[in-house]
């Protein structure tokens, strides 16, 4: 069984200590909900988890191996949804999703069953977020919420065991939030893990909550 853990993490942005002594442990099928006031380091922690930055101290491990030792294997097992939606205005919704799916086609991916999806691919991704009717619409004509859905469609288009979602519900309508909740539930049922930051609006059953406000106080 996979295990994703963080040990005594310290994050420094500029000259400021954002948080210190943060620990987390995410088993297969688990969910970690990051909460906290603005500026307490929710995005920073998710970026550390993705390997986009290095913690000032501490370690992040996958099955007891530091993710910094083999960044490519770590990349192959994660999906990161950040603030930018990475939707190209000149490409259609389907072309956008298909590109990100193709980009992940080369690594040793987990079997679709392991990730909780019967089948994957751009069309499965579009279907999971009800984007079928918008498949051939260029990115420039999509609304903010539709662009966010195109971004989220990557999750279902190319399976990966670890989802890192930074404020995934921003700009989403209630139907889309429900679809995301379903996608997360299916993902976890198949043994996938998810870590997400949220200011509410997305209930995740039996998620472990990590309130980063506590660790900001410890850092000061």
């Amino acid at each position, binding site marked *: 069984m996979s295990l994703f853990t963080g040990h005594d993490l310290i994050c420094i942005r500029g000259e400021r200590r954002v948080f210190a002594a943060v620990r987390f442990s995410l088993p297969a099928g688990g969910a970690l909900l990051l909460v906290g006031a603005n500026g307490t380091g929710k995005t920073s922690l998710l970026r550390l988890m*993705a*390997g*986009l*930055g290095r913690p000032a101290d501490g370690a992040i491990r996958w099955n007891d191996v530091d993710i910094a030792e083999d960044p*490519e*294997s770590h*990349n*192959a097992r*994660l999906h*990161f949804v*950040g*603030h*930018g*939606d*990475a*939707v*190209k205005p*000149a*490409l259609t919704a389907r*072309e956008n999703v298909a*590109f*990100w799916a*193709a*980009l*992940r*086609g*080369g*690594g040793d991916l987990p079997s679709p069953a392991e990730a909780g999806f019967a089948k994957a691919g751009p069309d499965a991704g579009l279907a999971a977020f009800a984007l079928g009717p918008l498949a051939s619409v260029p990115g420039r004509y999509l609304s903010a919420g539709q662009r966010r859905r195109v971004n989220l469609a990557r999750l279902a288009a190319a399976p990966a065991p670890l989802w890192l979602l930074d404020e995934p519900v921003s700009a989403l309508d209630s139907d889309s939030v429900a679809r995301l909740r379903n996608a997360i539930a299916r993902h976890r049922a198949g043994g996938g893990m998810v870590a997400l930051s949220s200011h509410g609006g997305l209930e995740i059953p039996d998620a472990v909550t990590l309130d980063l406000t506590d660790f900001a106080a410890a850092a000061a």
Partner: protein
Amino acid sequence: MKPFLAIVRRDVRLAFRQGTDTLMTLAFFVIAVVLFPFGVGPEPNVLARIGGGVVWVAALLASMLALERLFQTDYEDGGLELLALAPMPLQIVVLAKVLAHWLATGLPLAVVAPMLGVLMNVPPDVFPVLVAALLLGTPTLSLIGAIGAGLILGARRGGVLLALLVLPLFIPVLVFGVSAVEVAAQGFSPKASLLILGGLLLAALALGPWAAAAAIRQALE
């Protein structure tokens, strides 16, 4: 290999669908060269003397135009993070983007160069050498430019900074690119200059993607 081709295909498709990069680069190239006969006078001997150099300098400046956006648009829409998180080395991602950039801008420059050679009274039997030199030289420009394009991420008025950073590094390519054309125009073999251009390309191929990837990682921290 498949993800590599996916990036090349997407970037080439974006370049042609938006149309601006290729068209702007070519239009700038043509106009910059056309200005010279007006500036120095239509004396055929003078034009033939400076033709090779003018075409090369104009190609060099034109290839700068689209460089600024090589990583900038991906950086702004969040796509660069996702490319950095692709299950392949960032150097290979950079190489794929540079190849797409060259196909959209450098290759068209080499293709239209003979037409501008006619305008500058460059002897027609030198055209193959001119095209060969550009085909060897422009990928080097794209590779060196990628380092600058990575370094300016997040900077304001990055385009000017980019020119200041990379134009001095373009000088070796310019020197040997022009010498290939001039040597051939005098009836000697341009082999030595072309070999040096090939050597510069290999060096840029070995160093450019690594330096650009390091610059991008810095910007994404």
